[in-house]
């Protein structure tokens, strides 16, 4: 599916009543990418995110969701196709360049600096804008009070969920225009998960274009504007979150019925 088609289909299937006329912020155009020579993980994957949209990506394990985020963020080499940020090509750009262009990213694994304290981890989140440190620190500690109590503990000794909080907070510290989240809720306790989703939504509503990969697909599709289902390196389904949530095919293949009881 090319970008224009996909945009068109988004409008056509248009669950949301109005046609979206906002600017394209992120555009992934037929991207092919992979790790090993000769093995493509993404096979002509396309995705768009308009200004202020909250996009959810779901799909089976190994579908290439993380790879897609990494490709957008320049951490996996894009072999074909292109990635555009507000119309400018950013294919294979250095990660720190993208950060200065207002893109933030939370990886799925290894997402904290183990030997830095929590506070230092958070400071790293706002490395390029040290002036705003105080403000944002307060903001983040407000969301995750557990962290506030332990600002001097080294992140390496944190529990899995605590790490995940640190990782989330670090991204929130950035105050980016575009936020890429890879399974931010994994490992969080239910109450923290809800908190995290709500905050993501709030941040998004405050104007941050957000693309999140989630395995907690129900929660994700509940809050997102549009969802993509990725399978075998390409976008298999795409549509408004609610619609996907109730699409029997999507349920059968990806969502399962557990959450419905």
């Amino acid at each position, binding site marked *: 599916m090319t970008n224009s088609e996909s945009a068109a289909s988004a409008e056509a299937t248009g669950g949301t009543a109005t046609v979206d006329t906002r600017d394209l912020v992120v555009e992934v155009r037929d991207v092919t990418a992979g*790790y090993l020579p000769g093995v493509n993980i993404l096979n002509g994957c396309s995705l768009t995110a308009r200004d202020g949209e909250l996009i959810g990506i*779901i799909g*089976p*394990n*190994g579908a290439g*969701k*993380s*790879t897609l985020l990494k490709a957008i963020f320049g951490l996996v080499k894009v072999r074909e196709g292109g990635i555009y940020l507000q119309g400018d090509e950013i294919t294979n750009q250095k990660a720190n360049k993208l950060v200065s262009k207002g893109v933030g990213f939370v990886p*799925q*694994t290894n997402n904290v600096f183990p030997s830095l304290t929590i506070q230092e981890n958070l400071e790293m989140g706002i490395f390029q*804008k040290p002036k*705003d440190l105080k*403000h*944002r620190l307060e*903001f983040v500690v407000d969301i995750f009070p*557990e962290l506030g109590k332990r600002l001097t503990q080294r992140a390496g*000794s944190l*529990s*899995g*969920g*605590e790490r*995940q*909080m640190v990782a989330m907070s670090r991204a929130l510290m950035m*105050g980016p225009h575009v936020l890429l989240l890879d*399974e931010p809720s*994994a*490992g*969080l*306790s*239910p*109450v*923290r*998960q*809800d*908190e995290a989703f*709500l905050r993501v*939504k*709030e*941040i998004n*509503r*405050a*104007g*941050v274009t957000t693309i999140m990969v989630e*395995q*907690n*697909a129900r*929660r994700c599709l*509940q*809050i997102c504007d549009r969802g993509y289902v990725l399978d075998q390196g390409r976008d298999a389904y795409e549509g408004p*979150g609610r619609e996907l949530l109730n699409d029997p095919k999507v*349920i*059968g*293949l*990806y*969502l*399962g*019925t*557990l*959450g419905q*009881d």
Partner: protein
Amino acid sequence: MSDNATPTTPVKTTGLHVGDAGPGCKKVDPIIIADGVKRTFGGLTAVDVAHVEIPRGAITALIGPNGAGKTTFFNLLTGFDKPDEGKWEFDGRSLAHVPAYRVARMGLIRTFQLTKALGLLTVLDNMKLGAKGQSGENLFRSVFPFFWRKQEDDIEAKAKEILSRFKLDAKQEDYAASLSGGQRKLLEMARALMSDPTLVMLDEPMAGVNPALTQSLLDHILDLKSQGMTVLFVEHDMHMVRHIADWVIVMAEGKIVAEGDPHEVMRDPAVIDAYLGAHHDTDLGDDDDPETAEHIHALKELIDDEQ
């Protein structure tokens, strides 16, 4: 994709406890008994369990807020960490000062929350490593293949079977380092099952695993339960806990704070308050919540400040 997502209603094991269900209550047939186990890190008491028993032949869920000490408790039970005090036994045998590998040999296998795939071994080799009692693992016998060839074939067959259940069969010849986050979780769990453990302790096995697959794997676990295996797992996915757990133990700040049947425990206001949260079981999709609106406003200000 297969159609194994068809819902099944698992058979719950009941009548596990003696007397009232509550923190530290006695079990009819406990497989693990821990007494006064305590572990502190500097000033922080991560685990402080007065008494807990894990029922045999059942699926027990260990839940609790982040940082409650669940993983640390796992580490203590399996010999990966040493408690400051306390004693605990498995199958009637004390585990104090027993090194991790011996614990595993007794049939108590655990997985890690932060996965430990053996990166430069193939997925299949990862699995084979999980099998126990391999005669070819002895240096002297390893030189002569006829000692271990047959056993090796059996192990391989078994590994392939489990892999296909875990949807990893396509990746069996790849290095484990090339797996995605969720696939690693799957491998971690599949590998643990290779040794036919008496008790398997899974640390957040399904975090990051696709829901549809989760469902089919739960069936597998129930299968194993029916064959007599005991399962203790940590999980934050309440659907899953409700679905398969026969018993739930709630931990908070290192202590056991509640125990009981899953549905009952999840109705406990204290558990809801500290763990499940008010939004639990509600849709997060609607924007009309006044608190949310307030936050959005604050955020917008923050962003405007920067410009």
